[in-house]
Structure formats: structure tokens, C-alpha cells
């Protein structure tokens, strides 16, 4: 995140209004006013994020205890079990495998998506590009398609029996790879995410590029630098902060991949019900009706993301808000 160039953005913090200087009034304006204005956000956050999280943590230490055959009312009760659910989650090889898959998935997706986004952004910004407006809108368009729908769509395109692509391949007598086979399905899912996300990241980078004054390029041009040189040596370093940020956000998002594999799962034999960590949470909570294990797994995932978030916060606060404090 770079500091805004515009003069309007001179951003020294405002010491909240001081009136006649009475102690009480100063406290009111210094502390009460900002907190009163923050109240809607804080209340909503506490009610709809903090409270559910606390409740999930509470659930993660419980389990159902059944007596007898477990039929009829009162045969089931909730008991405290300490860390049992956590031990089970961490010892579960499926869970470890799902984390491994997601990391590999991130490794495939993030560089590919951001690389393409950067390429497109640079090309949009390059001199002499024709039909740039059309391309920009077209590439951004998939962002409007919800993941559930885009996965269904690509599912159709992946299935050899109904895909127009396989139809073409067949007609040409070529052997097409089966994308939904267990070797390739990870790439198939990454492609769906790439399709939905590349345009968005492109716009982010393109916006940064547009804010760079052209004089910088003109000078380089006089020195005999080519368009490619300018792109690689000047433009990329200038927008590096925004590339770093989009990478971080994308990485965090890949850990949460859920909708695409869940929608594709019934179409093939390659995706298990615990293919990603969140799918496992979903399966435990919604298919197996074991919200306690699901809560424990959730907490583990949240803690892992928290580690990432710590890193993220440090970078963000230093870069984005250095100018305020």
C-alpha cells in the first residue's frame, strides 16, 4: 500500500473537537464520541461474529453422550470432554491430507491467478493496446457469477459426456485429458477459482498502474528503454505493494476453499467429503450431525488462519496506516 499522492489526502489524525476545555467535556469528545460512532459496528461484530465464535469454542469442548439405544427423548445429553475433539481432529489423517491438498492448491492457484492478473493489467496499461475496454470488462465479468453457479457451469464443461470441448476434441480425433480424474481435479478446481478471480485482481493492479504519473515512463523512454523494460523495471516495482497484498488475501482465501469442490463432488469419484478442511467441517456438522467435532476442527483452522492474519496485520498496518498515527 503506497501513500496517496493527492494533496487532499494529507492525513494527520484529528484530535477530536475540543470545546471550552472542561475535563468532562474533553473526555466526552475524546473517548465517548468515537466510541458512540463505532457502536453499530462493534455491537454487530459482537453479536454476529464474536458471540458465535465464543459459542463454537464452547461447543468444541463438548460431545453427545447417549444412554442405551439412544431412542426416545432424553436419551442424549451434552457432556464436557476437554480436548478430546481436538486430539481427534489433529490425529485424523484425513484432516492432515486435506490441509496438504489445500496448500498444494494454493501453490497452483495463487501464482497462476496473480501472474495472469498482472500480465493483463500491464497489457491494459501498455501503449497501443486495442479493444482494451472490451477485454477489461470481459475478464472482469466472471466475478459476478457466484461460485456455486460457476462450478456447476464448469462441471458441465469438464464432463466428457456433455462438454462441447470434448465434442470438438472427439471430432478432431484427439485424446482429451479427463479433468475430473483424481490426478487433475485439483487443477480443474483451481481453474474455476482462477476464472472467477483473475479479473478482480487485474482491476486492483490496473487501478494502481493508472495512478502512476506518466512522466516517470517518459524519462525512461528517452533513455531508450523498451515497453517491456518499462513494464518489468518500473511498473512492477511501483505496484509491488498491491501485488503483495493481493497475494496475501488470495492465500488466505485458498485456505477457505469450499464451494467449488462441494459443487463438483457429486460429478466424480475423485473428491472425498473431506477434500478440503472446510469440507470436513461441513461434513461433520451437517452430514454426520457432530457439531462438536466440527467446532473443534473449525477452531484449529481459525487458529491457523490467525497465525497468517498476524503476519497480514503487521504488513497492512505498517503499510496502509502508517500515515495516520
Amino acid at each position: 500500500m503506497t501513500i496517496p499522492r493527492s494533496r487532499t489526502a494529507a492525513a494527520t489524525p484529528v484530535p477530536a473537537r475540543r470545546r471550552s476545555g472542561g475535563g468532562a467535556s474533553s473526555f466526552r469528545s475524546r473517548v465517548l464520541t468515537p466510541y458512540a460512532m463505532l457502536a453499530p459496528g462493534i455491537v454487530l461484530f459482537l453479536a454476529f461474529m464474536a458471540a458465535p465464535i465464543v459459542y463454537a469454542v464452547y461447543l468444541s469442548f463438548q460431545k453427545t453422550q447417549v444412554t442405551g439405544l439412544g431412542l426416545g427423548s432424553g436419551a442424549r445429553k451434552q457432556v464436557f470432554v476437554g480436548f478430546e475433539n481436538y486430539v481427534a481432529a489433529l490425529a485424523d489423517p484425513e484432516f492432515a491430507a486435506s490441509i496438504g491438498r489445500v496448500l498444494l492448491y494454493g501453490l497452483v492457484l495463487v501464482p497462476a491467478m496473480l501472474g495472469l492478473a498482472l500480465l493483463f493489467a500491464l497489457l491494459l496499461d501498455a501503449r497501443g493496446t486495442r479493444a482494451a475496454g472490451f477485454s477489461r470488462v470481459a475478464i472482469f465479468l466472471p466475478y459476478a457469477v457466484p461460485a456455486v453457479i460457476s462450478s456447476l457451469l464448469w462441471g458441465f464443461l469438464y464432463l466428457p459426456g456433455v462438454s462441447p470441448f470434448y465434442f470438438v476434441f472427439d471430432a478432431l480425433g484427439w485424446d482429451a485429458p479427463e479433468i475430473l480424474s483424481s490426478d487433475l481435479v485439483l487443477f480443474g478446481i483451481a481453474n474455476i477459482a482462477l476464472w472467477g478471480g483473475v479479473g478482480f485482481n487485474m482491476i486492483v493492479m490496473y487501478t494502481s498502474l493508472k495512478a502512476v504519473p506518466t512522466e516517470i515512463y517518459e524519462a525512461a523512454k528517452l533513455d531508450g528503454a523498451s515497453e517491456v523494460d518499462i513494464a518489468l523495471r518500473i511498473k512492477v516495482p511501483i505496484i509491488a505493494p498491491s501485488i503483495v497484498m493481493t497475494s496475501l488475501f488470495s492465500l488466505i482465501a485458498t485456505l477457505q476453499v469450499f464451494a467449488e469442490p462441494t459443487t463438483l463432488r457429486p460429478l466424480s469419484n475423485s473428491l472425498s467429503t473431506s477434500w478440503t478442511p472446510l469440507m470436513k467441517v461441513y461434513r461433520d456438522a451437517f452430514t454426520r450431525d457432530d457439531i462438536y467435532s466440527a467446532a473443534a476442527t473449525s477452531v484449529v483452522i481459525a487458529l491457523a488462519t490467525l497465525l497468517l492474519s498476524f503476519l497480514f496485520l503487521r504488513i497492512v498496518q505498517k503499510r496502509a496506516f502508517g500515515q495516520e498515527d
Partner: protein
Amino acid sequence: MTATATAPVDLPRVAEPRPGKSRGDRGKPNWIATVILLLGALYCLLPVFWVLTASTKDGSELFSTFTFAPSSHLWDNIVELTAYRDGVFWRWMLNTALYAGVGALLSTYVSALSGYVLAKFTFPGKSTVFSVLLMGVLVPGVILAIPQYFLFAQFGLTNTYWSVLLPQIISPYGIYLARIYAAASVPTDVIEAARTEGAGEMRIFSTIATSMMLPGLVTIFLFQFVAIWNNFLLPYIMLGDDGLFPITVGLNGLLNQGATVPALYTLVITGALLSVLPLIAMFLLLQRFWRVDLAAGAVKA
């Protein structure tokens, strides 16, 4: 769901019109760049084009003709979709507009207010409040949905519009963006001047700050709109009455009716097409507004 949630980190920056690069002066055509971009556009449009052709096919054609060649049943499909359960599809569309539209509006307001305060006030506990709020970005919805259900059940509010609307007003991500926007676009001396004239803080926020942050707020609105529109799980769990469903949950239901009922693929594909159209229109509209306004803001300064 994954990659679409990334950060428009640099969006708030006020873009200055670049001298010497107006529409008239584009240099000589760069065909390599143009062709690569058009290939990218083709990649992004092909599936959309497929939906277009697929929605013109009837049930048997969908599974027997695999080309991009369109058929003539689009209108029939729309009529059939409209007839399904007395037009519940259009109800889903309205519901979606309500959840995403009203939800995103409220969310934008709350985010703007919080972001403005966090950017423009100094007060004890500020960085703690911000850090805690921001951590919310990292908690996935799947994890929150069940506890949220229990919470709403305490008040007997499950299976209501509120159960889907309220939890999505709070957006840590929106607050984060609003803070950047406020810091970048609302000059401190303007706030000070308004204060000396005796304006109240809420008045300063609602009359001065919001208009300066407007382009950024449009962006927040857009992101929040897409986020709510994309959130499948929350309404899926909260709602039992299909008259309250948003479009994604409704269409998903047409596919998963159990083994004894055929999946209504033609209706789902037609429905997917119809539901994405307004969103695309809004995107195109807002995208233009957002760009123009950013430039206008810079000129004014």
C-alpha cells in the same frame, strides 16, 4: 468463493488523470498485447456463452447436442421456470435483491461510519478495536453459520428475512476498506473547519465525509453485494421456507431433490442465466460510475 475475496488494496487511491495518454493518443497498435488480452477475454466469456446457448435448449437437447449451437427453447424454458411452483423463481430474485441490496447498503453505512472514525479520530483503544474487527476477515462463514443459527433460534428468528440480513451487515473487510478510503479522501482541515462552524460529528460525517468517500463507498457496496450474493451457506441453514430463499439456494434445490426426482438442469441453467444478468448490468453501470468519479474527485482537488 475463494479467489474472489481478495483485496482491492489500491483501489482507494485517487487516480490522477495521466497527461498525454488520452483516448486520442494511443501510439501505434500493439497487436501482441491486444491478442493476448482478447484470448483472456475469450477464456472468460466462453462459459458465459455456453450458458447462453444451453439455456436455449430443452431437456433432451441439453444432453444430446453438445455444441455451442443454440436452439430455440429459451422462451419455453423461461415460461417453465416462471410456472415452477407459481413463480417462486421471481420471488427468489426479489429476495436476492433484498438481501444483497439492503444488506450491502446497511453494511456500507456501518463500514463507512466505523472506517471514518478509525481513520480520523485518535482515541484510546483504537488499534485494538481495529485489530479485533479485522480478524473477522479470517473467520470463514462455514464456521460461523451453525452458532449463528443457535443464536437466532434463541430469539425465534430463524427462518426469517432478518436471520439472513442481520449477520451480513457487519463486514470487517468493508471497515478495513472504509478506513483506507477515509484516510485518503477526507482532508483533516475540512473536518476542523466544519467543527469550528459548530457542526456535530454525525453531521460532519453524513454531509461532508460521505460525499468525499462516495467513490470508495460504491466500491464497498459492490464488494458487499457480491459477498452476500455469494454466501450460500448462511441462508441455506437459516431458512426453511422456500419463499424466503435467495436465488442460489433456490437453484441448488432444483438440482438436489433427492434420488427419486430428476434434477431440473434446464431450469437451473436458465435460472442461472437470468439471475446473473441483472448483476452484470449493475457491475457495468457501477464500474463506470466508480472510475469516472475517482477522476472527478482528483480534478476537484
